[in-house]
């Protein structure tokens, strides 16, 4: 019985199917809002699903001479990581005091898997543009991960030193969300910008810049593999704001969470549409010198309880 329940939670709700459906819907919101900002009409709501189905029916071409396993491992890694993450986030939020083993360290590792998969798949595809994209992805990853980790450390500090995800939510339910303090706001800014980079949205879509390196790491992907990447991107757009709400804005136990969630998603889309893409060296400088310093300030403030 419990096996069925576990399978259900991983495959249907809140695991793969649920996250994928909501994620693809969010990519529609992204496209629609972007289109309205551009004075365009935008696609109908079923467009991402239609794209997904179409890609499933297409041939998956694997470049000659590249490692088949590594090439296909790329999207699978991201998919698996996002599914597990979705299950963890939901079970933690629904039942914060439960015994489900899950802490921030695991979540940080799982969040690192999609870019890792991209790097593996991109370098396996034997394309010069993809290799440029991989090197950019790597640089970008090291750029945003440092302030992101410092922001996570801030949160751990505010939760009284516990790295258990449930404790962080419980601490917020007891004393109010961490966001309502200076260090919390700084942490939110840092995590939001890292989210932007993790999602690969403008201004941090450097690894896949279509005008420069023609989608970079994704260039050789087609068919099912590309569809999987699409789904992973959608799932990330669903899970990363949820993560932000869980660790800083009091979890999503109540209905207000939907509003909070939509607010964050729209904020991400607005940032995407009001900025040009920056260069990789500028991105590194921005995250290490600008946001990195900001996150350290946040950490220091958190030490003093602000």
């Amino acid at each position, binding site marked *: 019985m419990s096996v069925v329940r576990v399978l259900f939670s991983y495959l249907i709700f809140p695991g793969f199917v649920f996250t994928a459906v909501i994620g693809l819907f969010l990519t529609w919101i992204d496209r629609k809002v*972007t289109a309205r*900002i*551009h*004075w*365009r009409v935008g696609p109908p709501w079923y467009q991402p699903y239609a794209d997904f189905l179409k890609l499933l029916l297409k041939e998956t071409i694997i470049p000659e001479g590249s490692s088949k396993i590594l090439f296909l491992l790329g999207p699978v890694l991201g998919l698996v990581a996002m599914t597990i993450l979705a299950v963890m986030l939901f079970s933690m939020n629904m039942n914060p005091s439960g015994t489900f083993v899950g802490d921030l360290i695991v979540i940080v590792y799982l969040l690192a898997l999609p870019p890792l998969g991209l790097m593996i798949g991109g370098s396996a595809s034997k394309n*010069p*543009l993809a290799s*440029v994209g991989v*090197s*950019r992805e790597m640089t970008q990853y090291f750029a945003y991960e440092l302030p992101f980790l410092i922001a996570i450390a801030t949160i751990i500090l505010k939760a009284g030193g516990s790295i258990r995800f449930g404790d962080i939510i419980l601490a917020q339910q007891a004393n109010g969300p961490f966001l309502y303090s200076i260090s919390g706001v700084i942490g939110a800014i840092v995590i939001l910008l890292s989210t932007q980079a993790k999602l690969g949205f*403008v*201004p941090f*879509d*450097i690894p896949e*810049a*279509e*005008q*420069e*390196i*023609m989608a970079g790491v994704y260039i050789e992907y087609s068919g099912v593999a590309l569809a999987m990447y699409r789904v992973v991107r959608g799932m990330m757009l669903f899970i990363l704001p949820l993560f932000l709400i869980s660790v800083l804005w009091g979890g999503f136990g109540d209905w207000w969470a939907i509003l909070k969630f939509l607010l964050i998603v729209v904020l991400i889309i607005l940032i995407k*549409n*009001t*900025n*040009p*893409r*920056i*260069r*990789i*060296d*500028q991105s590194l400088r921005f995250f290490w010198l600008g946001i990195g310093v900001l996150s350290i300030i946040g950490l220091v403030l958190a030490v003093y309880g602000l």
Partner: protein
Amino acid sequence: MKRIVPIGPYHPLQEEPEFFKLIVEGEKVVDLEINIGYNHRGHEFIAQKMTYDQVPFLVERICGICSDSHPYAYVMAVEDAAHIEAPPRAQYIRTIIGELERIHSHYLWVGLAGHFIGYNTVWMWVWRYREPLLDIFELIMGNRNHYAINKIGGARRDILPEHYGTIEKYLDLVEKKTTMFTKAVLDDPVIRARLENVGILTKEDAIGFGVLGPTARGSGYAIDVRKDDPYDAYDKVDWDMIVFDEGDILAKAKVRLLECYESIKIVRQCLRDMPDGPIETRVDEIPPGEGIGRHEAPRGEVFHYVRSDGSNMPARHKIRAPSFMNIPSNVVAVRGYSIADAALVLAAVDPCYCCTERTVVLENGKKKLTGHDLLRLSRQKTEAIRRRYRR
């Protein structure tokens, strides 16, 4: 380790087929090889098989963006050869259309530049305000593009007095919006970070490569046919040449944005001062001789040479488009910058490849595939696939 990053022949960065070989070390561009010749159509030769009056429609189709510039220069070349002058009203009409075209072409570039740095909002917004201008072209001449306004010895269509108001209303709008875009470009720190000190073309290089138009004026090289050799109504109106010394992409963007103001100024004065009268003179035949026509297209000076042998067809027609001079300067402008910058630097000269095509290129003794060849190959492949699946 040196590697080649290909941009082209088909690339999302470009609307036309051409091939740049970026020779890179890591992300840094160390050299650039420019390959053109994918789209050669043999316009000069075709022009020599057409009557004088047919050629404007042909040269109009050299370029879809500056489609007024080529016929403008061509009719001036023929008028020069035949020693005729267009009536004053026709001169004003041509000037107005030339300047309106400059606005739409510069807007097009600003939008594309926004697209190339991944700022699609700028792209869509700028093009949104370019759209009413195309409607005005349609109102005046019946076509959004390829206006067919130029005619040897005059203009083909009149600008009706009831259309003045529409044009002036649009000028007010475009003036406001240009201010908005100029501010948006100059005030946004992220845009500045992408454009400033990138793709610098020094004045020496600019003169050495003989670049023209906004590319030259952004490098401090003050060259503009409208000032240097005024034609039609350009010496009867008051306007300034925009020159910046920096030579980077930001300077080129500033030149283009501020030139929109000058164009607005010129069109306003033309509409105010436009005399009444005929819009064409009768041209019976073109005597033997030769003539040149120079027009400041949005991208720089476009030059047409026509030699007549007294027949009804040009004996020789020679075209030099500004992009032909501007594109080679990319080689120095792009060196030392990253791949990310290269995409932008290549676009900064506002290249027009269909204007630039001259030849069919041989590489290592073999004919390089042209657009036609690639099309044929792709059709053959489709046929092969169809055959395979029919079985």
